[in-house]
């Protein structure tokens, strides 16, 4: 299941959507906005995407994860627009019969989302400047999460 949303992520609901009486484990990952990057203070973030492609890529990743692991349910939610400090920009919930699967799949999903899904964030710094974040190619060296 894939959601691109403008409102804060309802984590309780996300967990309910992956709940199953066949599940022995659920893993929820939240990527949240840090206030400080080194000495610079973030006021808030602003997320933009290429909507049709972002949705397609997220669906491909869910399908790939389901193909690779014995997942029961899988939900990926990404925020768009303004995200306040401390709020989650992304939530990944995975349920499975055995816990190793849920951990591995959730981790693979967030790692891969950060590489291939056309979503970008703009930092709004406390000095009033703003900046689109375009990490160096390849696995990011200074990942925010």
């Amino acid at each position, binding site marked *: 299941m894939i959601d691109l949303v403008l409102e804060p992520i309802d984590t309780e609901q996300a967990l309910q959507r992956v709940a199953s009486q066949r599940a022995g484990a659920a893993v929820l990952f939240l*990527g949240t906005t840090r206030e400080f990057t080194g000495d610079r203070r973030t006021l808030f973030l602003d*997320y*933009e*995407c*290429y909507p*049709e*492609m*972002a949705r*397609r890529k997220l669906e491909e990743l869910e399908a790939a994860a389901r193909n690779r692991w014995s997942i029961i349910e899988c939900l990926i939610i*990404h925020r768009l627009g303004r995200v306040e400090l401390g709020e989650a*920009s*992304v939530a990944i919930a995975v349920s499975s019969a055995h816990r190793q699967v849920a951990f591995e799949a959730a981790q693979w999903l*967030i790692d891969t*989302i*950060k*590489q*291939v*899904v*056309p*979503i*970008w*964030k*703009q930092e709004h710094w406390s000095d009033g400047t703003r900046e*689109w*974040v*375009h*990490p*160096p*190619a390849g696995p990011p060296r200074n990942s*925010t*999460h």
Partner: protein
Amino acid sequence: MKLAVQLFAGARKIAGCDALWIDLPDGSDVAGLRSALGSAHPELAALLPAARFAVNLEFADEQLRLPADAEIALIPPVSGG
């Protein structure tokens, strides 16, 4: 052929618009598009080497020939998550 290239994030900000039109010989590939875009819009040159192109919602190899009706987007390094 004349192709529209959608822009996002830093590329959109630099270009000051959501899309650019670019003139290319029929049968051009993605590498040709990359080079033509850099020549026509030198302000994008710093961003282009690390950017990918999406053709019909899929990341495209440099050798991919561009269909005349392709939906094309410039994808600077992503920062979702």
